[in-house]
């Protein structure tokens, strides 16, 4: 079982709630994915559409909410969003996102560390979204991050784990859970991250924009389990030299 802070999770697949065609599709896809922790964002209420409320659609007994600070461009904006999240959601859990550049949506290492430090002091359970930077990962865990969330590739690109060597180092050195986030575009990408030893993965776009989000949610669930099981079961080593899978003896009669 995965443990983050004082909570344990059976599922190692965290779900995002953005980009779904409808609340119905979102609910069914999250259900199929088996996710127990899901991210949500904070935005102004649409006053012309007061009933558009995600909390009305999701059972908080079933899903542990992980509010994110998406949209924050520096530590100050992120901290403001953190307090709003705590007030509306009655939760001190937070996926910290500080992305100053809307072109790349890549995280700012300096502001992310600064905000993590302050929010941890303020009692938040902070899971920072970060570039796949092994040294930054050590520093974030030193200031009290409950987990680290290195990116596989830029948000929404579906390119998979392009940061393989860095993520391998992060996992090897981590004392807190490592959750690979962003860019996982196919179940094989999620399985590969888990085989590397990641503790969990977060997937949103790849499920939400799939032709059939519900079946894709299920596919990711299976792939994450497969990857984790493989990691625990001990994968064979890769080599360059061929090695027969059938016996090499008992063939004399052929020659």
């Amino acid at each position, binding site marked *: 079982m995965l443990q983050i802070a004082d909570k344990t999770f059976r599922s190692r697949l965290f779900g*995002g*709630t*953005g*980009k*779904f065609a409808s609340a119905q599709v*979102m609910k069914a896809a999250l259900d199929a994915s088996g996710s127990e922790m899901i*991210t*949500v*964002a*904070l*935005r*102004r*209420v649409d*006053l012309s559409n*007061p*009933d558009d*409320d*995600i*909390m*009305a659609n999701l059972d908080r007994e079933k899903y542990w*909410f992980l*509010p*994110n600070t*998406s949209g924050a461009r520096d530590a100050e904006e992120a901290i403001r969003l953190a*307090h*709003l*999240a705590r*007030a*509306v*959601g009655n939760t001190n859990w937070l996926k910290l996102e500080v992305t100053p550049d809307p072109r790349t949506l890549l995280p700012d290492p300096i502001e992310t560390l600064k905000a993590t430090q302050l929010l941890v002091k303020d009692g938040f359970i902070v899971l920072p979204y970060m570039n796949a930077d092994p040294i930054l990962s050590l520093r974030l865990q030193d200031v009290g991050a409950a987990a680290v969330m290195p990116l596989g590739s830029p*948000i929404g690109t579906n390119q998979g784990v392009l940061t393989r060597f860095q993520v391998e180092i992060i996992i090897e050195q981590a004392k807190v859970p490592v959750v690979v986030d962003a860019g996982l575009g196919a179940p094989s990408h999620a399985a590969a991250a888990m085989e590397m030893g990641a503790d969990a993965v*977060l997937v*949103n*776009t790849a499920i939400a924009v799939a032709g059939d989000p519900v079946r894709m949610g299920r596919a990711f669930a299976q792939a994450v389990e497969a990857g984790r099981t493989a990691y625990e079961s001990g994968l064979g080593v890769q080599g360059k030299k061929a090695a027969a899978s059938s016996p090499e003896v008992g063939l004399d009669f052929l020659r």
Partner: protein
Amino acid sequence: MIIICNGEEQEVAEGCTLSQLLDLLQLAPDTVVVECDKKIVNRIDYETTVLAEGQNLELIRFVGGG
């Protein structure tokens, strides 16, 4: 009188409380958080918070996100 609600002018009655505003806007209090002039208002104070001319309110809630 006029207040600013999520960036837009909103006509409300004199002495209108925050919870009355939420009723008016058909918003369930426990699904939103309210910032009044940049300060978060506790839910328990919605009843007793009387709005004043020109106040700047932000009504925020959870939406889908990754």
